[in-house]
């Protein structure tokens, strides 16, 4: 090793630390594919819970999908909901424990296909929960089938020649529906494919947690994400493909912000 390289000892000194695993993340290794947006979003949520100091007040609801094992990674109380039903599960938890922070975490199949009714009605009732929606345009867990959010022309294992509108309809913009429901208080669409976007997503999810204390309604954050395995791309290419194809259809930004917070 050359003399001018910084030694390991030097490197792990407190003042040289630029990143630390949140205490809210357990030591269990993520099972996610390399480059998957689920991992980054988990990390963001864990950091927010830690920074807000709300570990003992937080109850999470995991979906059925790639993130079904979220409870293995988050050191908070969690429930694993049936496919699509996380908003109903969270509704009851929050109503019975109104002082707690309750969040759901769901993929697009879970939230926007099988669980559409629960999603819309929880938001319409204005349940005081935080909903995180990972939109990767595909069913990751079951091997890459078409999701309601799959783009037109996009290939999946059940649309091997690309999604055809005449057969399968158009991709659903769930967050655009949600934003129109008076029950929602804060609605945002973000992504985690660049450091700058990670910071923006963290800001949005943090607000979505903080606003829960106000009891003003549902806070909903969509995270447009990649699925390197399902899309059959390497992580870098998948992020590029996402930026080029997903983001024009699912544009990023805050979609509903409280008037006094503007």
């Amino acid at each position: 090793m050359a003399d001018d390289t910084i030694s390991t000892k030097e490197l792990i000194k407190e003042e040289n630390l630029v990143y630390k695993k949140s205490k809210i993340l357990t030591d269990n290794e993520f099972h996610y594919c390399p480059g998957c947006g689920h991992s980054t979003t988990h990390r963001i949520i864990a950091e927010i819970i830690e920074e807000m100091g709300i570990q003992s007040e937080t109850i999470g609801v995991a979906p059925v999908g790639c993130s079904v094992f979220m409870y293995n990674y988050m050191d908070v109380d969690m429930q694993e909901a049936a496919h699509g039903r996380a908003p109903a599960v969270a509704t009851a938890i929050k109503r019975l424990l109104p002082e707690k922070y309750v969040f759901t975490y769901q993929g697009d199949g879970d939230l926007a296909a099988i669980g559409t009714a629960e999603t819309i009605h929880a938001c319409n009732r204005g349940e005081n929960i935080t909903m995180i929606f990972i939109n990767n345009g595909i069913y990751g867990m079951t091997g890459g089938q078409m999701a309601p959010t799959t783009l037109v022309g996009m290939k999946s294992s059940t649309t091997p020649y690309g999604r055809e509108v005449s057969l399968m309809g158009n991709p659903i913009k769930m967050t655009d529906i949600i934003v129109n429901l008076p029950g929602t208080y804060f609605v945002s669409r973000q992504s985690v494919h660049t450091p700058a976007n990670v910071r923006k997503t963290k800001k949005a999810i943090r607000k979505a947690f903080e606003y829960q204390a106000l009891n003003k309604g549902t806070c909903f954050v969509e995270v447009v994400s990649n699925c390197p395995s399902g899309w059959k791309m390497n992580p870098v290419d998948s992020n590029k493909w996402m930026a080029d194809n997903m983001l024009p259809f699912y544009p990023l930004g805050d979609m509903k912000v409280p008037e006094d917070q503007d």
Partner: protein
Amino acid sequence: MEEFVLMKGNEAIAEAAIRAGTDGYFGYPITPQSEVIEYLAAAKPHERTGMVLLQAESEVAAINMLYGGAGAGKKVMTSSSSPGISLMQEGISYIAGSELPCLLVNVVRGGPGLGTIQPSQCDYFQSTKGGGHGDYNLIVLAPASVQEMADFVSLGFDLAFKYRNPVMILSDGAIGQMMEKVKFKPQQPRSKKSPDWATTGKTPDRERNIITSLDLDPARQERFNEKLQAKYKEICKKEVRYEKIKCDDAEYLFVAYGTSSRICQKSMQMAREEGIKVGLFRPITLWPFPYNEIREMTGQLKGILSVEMSAGQMVEDVRLAVEGKVKVNHYGRMGGIIPTPDEIVENLKQKIIGG
């Protein structure tokens, strides 16, 4: 001293729910049990005890609200009727698979499909043999009066929490709709304590609590199933409930639950006036089923008629109970028809005594 009041079975369940200190009711309207949620809405349970009441967007949502509430350690319940209970089956399986306590009420109507809104007992198989996917059992209580509709709410919650298992009150449209006098227990306070497994927020003094039915490791999943089965065995040993009426000298036996058992009491009286020594065995727990208690009677019996408002479902358990030692037959009506006492006597004569 609380007075007797005159009430429908469905209303009695609702009032009893508030009195039992229920934390949350989540449900979706369906005939013949909508009086449960209507009564609750009018009774302002939130003001009386702080109880949460929510009309869900579907039975699917309602049962998953139960999952969430039960996972948070709360006393939660729902009520529905046959098609709605069918819709809940995945959620019930999750609740059983996560070992959560809750109370389900099925005020059965005739099926299959949309069927009819008239009373029936055609959901016996669904309630006692699983219903949803996987090897699990509900504890199933069968009330035969408006009083039992009320009493089985607190009994149901006690059993649910004792065994961390869903409990179902299996009623029917007749008991749900008919009015009888009923006496309620005094108001119980809602529990302030949470079970140690509940998701109430991870505090530094304990590990995080996780509510899940998932385990992809086959060896562990099998061990978990064995644990469940051991629990069910214990329930079968300890929680069998039944009622025997005029069984001491009986040569023949009606086995019937719920509304059918009420009618059989009249049939029994009519038959005895003709000199036929018939008794009535009324299972109160349909699961666990009183197999041993029926088998113990086989020595004195010449025949058993299982009377149900179905094509013959419980009769299979009666046959299992007697192990071929006594003749067993079934009489039932379907599609919302309630059998009359004399047609039951006629069938006892034809299918058991004469046949």
